[in-house]
């Protein structure tokens, strides 16, 4: 074997400069799970960025249809924004309650979060239904296509979040605050907060900038 001839020259770390701190080994499951989900969230945000880019490019292409300022209702958007913002807060309360294993506050926090999420979805749905009934559906113009896709994509994420929230509550109800369920709860909280961050971009770029134009 060749190793007998060259082995003598093997050395620990030919490049190491100064103090080297040894890596302590694999991270805990909580860190691994949350980090994986964090990476997923970043990829989700990249996906949203494509819809934002499409909106930015197509926003002016109204093809004779309505402009943003003609169809947006700032009052509704403000209510939606407050709903999501408060739900982010109550979701945070629910995660604290889960960490200290307080069922009452957990259920309360999750229930309020769910309620606010549903109110948000109802307002958004009514806005969409109203636009479609006025003939301003996504097929009307490229601007409306981009608008419906971007806002609708966020809405779909919120719907998925509500479904996940209910599954989460059911798990805690059936199994209690087990370590794996707490890890999922942490991921859910990350997801919900990230949706709120995306909504900040949506209401600023789409609704506020759009209604000014």
């Amino acid at each position, binding site marked *: 074997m060749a190793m007998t001839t060259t082995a003598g020259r093997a050395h620990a770390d030919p490049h190491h400069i100064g103090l080297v701190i040894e890596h302590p*080994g694999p991270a805990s499951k909580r860190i691994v799970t949350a980090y994986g989900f964090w990476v997923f969230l970043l*990829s989700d945000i990249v996906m949203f960025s494509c819809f934002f880019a499409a909106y930015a490019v197509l926003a002016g292409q109204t093809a004779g249809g309505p402009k943003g300022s003609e169809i947006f209702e700032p009052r509704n958007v403000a209510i939606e924004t407050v709903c999501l913002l408060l739900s982010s807060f109550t979701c945070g309360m629910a995660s604290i309650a889960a960490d200290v294993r307080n069922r009452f506050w957990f259920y309360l926090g999750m229930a309020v979060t769910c309620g606010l999420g549903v109110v948000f979805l109802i307002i958004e749905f009514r806005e969409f239904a109203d636009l479609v009934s006025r003939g301003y559906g996504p097929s009307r113009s490229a601007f409306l*296509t981009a608008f419906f896709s971007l806002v609708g994509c966020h809405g779909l994420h919120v719907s998925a979040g509500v479904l996940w929230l209910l599954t989460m509550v059911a798990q805690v109800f059936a199994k209690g605050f087990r370590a794996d369920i707490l890890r999922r709860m942490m991921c859910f909280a990350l997801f919900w907060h990230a949706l709120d961050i995306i909504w900040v971009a949506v209401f600023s770029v789409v609704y506020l900038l759009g209604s000014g134009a």
Partner: protein
Amino acid sequence: MPAVRTVEAMMLGKLDWSAIPFDQPIPLIAGAVVLVGILGVLIWVVVKGHLPYLWHEWITSVDHKRIGVMYILLASVMLLRGGSDAIMMRIQQAVAFQSQGYLPPEHYNQIFSAHGTIMIFFVAMPFVIGLMNLIVPLQLGVRDVAFPTLNSVGFWLTATGALLVNLSLVIGEFARTGWLAFPPLSELSYSPGVGVDYYAWSLQISGIGTLVAGINLVTTVLKLRTKGMNYLRMPMFCWTTLASNLLIVAAFPILTATLAMLLLDRYLGFHFFTNEAGGNVMMFMNLIWAWGHPEVYILVLPAFGIFSEVVSTFSGKALFGYRSMVLATMAICVISFMVWLHHFFTMGAGPDVNAIFGIASMIIAIPTGVKIYNWLFTMYGGRIRFETPMLWSIGFMVTFIIGGLTGVLVAVPPADFMLHNSMFLVAHFHNVIIGGVLFGAFAGFEYWFPKAFGFRLDDRWGKLAFWFTFLGFYVTFVPLYVVGMLGMTRRMQHYDVAAWRPWMLVAAAGMAVLTIGVICQIMQLVVSIRNREALRDRTGDPWDGRSLEWATSSPPPVFNFAFNPDVRGEDAYWDMKARAQQQSLEHGGPEYQDIEMPRNSPTGFVCAFFATIMGFALIWHIWWMVILGGIGAFATFVVFAWRDHDEYVIPAEEVAAIDRVNLEERRSLVSMAGAV
């Protein structure tokens, strides 16, 4: 009668008997042969009683090694499918001089679309992901990837995509739009059939699988490393895996979004890329290439990692310029996101935009050049063993430099205006993808096969396969450079220019040589499996390797390492071997402990089952089935979440028994070597 028709439309959507191409003998016969083959294998498996074994040990397995092997198997089977498409295209272009050839245009268009789609998404991607899955946890010295069950889900979703693409052969049709389905051709008005839907849905489903694999491997490399495995001690393959999977995580969502927009246009009458109502076709080019260019590096970076491992091992030297290699890898990772416009220089952008993207495209050749020099200097002064993996690596260096140089040529916008969409371009990207990715995949396959299965591959057939593939590659693709210079555009079903004819005949002959190469590869597998006892690798270290995957037995036990290794430097295993020699491998009676491993789970397979149903139903507009598939997928998710025991324990005695056998083998071999 109309009532019957509406019920039928509700139950079957767009699907009816006309979907099966009875009038086209080639796809029908090919489909029938494949179907008979699959049925034959299934019947054989059931009759022989292998089904329980397959189910428990492979289909539901969450072991990263098994999943890696299944990825590679999928890639190999799909390579044969994509290769058959290539053979058909080469024959068509060889005979279709001033005639229609033997493939009608609508069929020829499906073939080149399927060839590109399959080769990129279902050969190159699963091959490199499979190798990363198989090797990276071993190199990092850990027991599994970060999310074992998700890993299985990712694989089965990729397989679903491959299944749907191949289903299009017998039910319906495939896209005729090229492998990227550019609108407006791919819009409903110009492609009313189900071909583009097959394309888009299979890529959406397999894209989710790829994203899952990417998240998994990023987390594995960043968060699961054994003690002492600092970032700058990781083997090069782990670095390239990190870079490649960061690109997957950042780029695949762009593909998902872009295809979602195309599907919204097709299904719900949106106007992203239509000619009407303000839609913008160029948005598609822009977005798809914002994914497409990083994709090139997603494929080739792991191959670079493989070559680094192979060259270093077979030169008997540490990798030259390790830190510059790390830097070059991460530089490529970032710059690859800044060059995508070079795929559409000719589509209207002005000199400022074109110049900046052209310069960025040339800059990315610099870190690649750094890598080439590092490999050359690793070989310089080394004691090189010309085993099969090393041959593939050297073949790669020669071929990839040529491909890279033609790449720098087309990165110059004025030159690109001459060469855009010509056969020169076709020759260029085959030059880098075959010479880079495929050679890399084969090198990795030969190099790590003994680790996965416990015996080496036959040397003679391996070398034959290399030489036929290497020569076949040049005979096939150099003529394509030439006809490109002579003005031939890509994707031509027939042509009337006499000057191109001889070159197309040479290319067809080259394809025959390539085919012999593939046959040699298959022969190599057959011969090696027959002679497996003679080729058995008892040490777990058949190549005198340097990184941790060689520190465990071949094939590794399910838990990989009885003790998580403690790493003290680069080339961790080389270092250990050196120290072990001084201490004559004395362990001093280590204390074995119970090991917890993730329990196997059918989640991945069940997910893929529902994904297949949903994909098929979406393609054919069978809405009730879509809803059924959706409910099934959600139910699977809940059932998975409801599991109480997701791990099982391997008792310490069993770990000890398995590990001692391996240690004995190694000790005897090392002492023999010492005596010599």
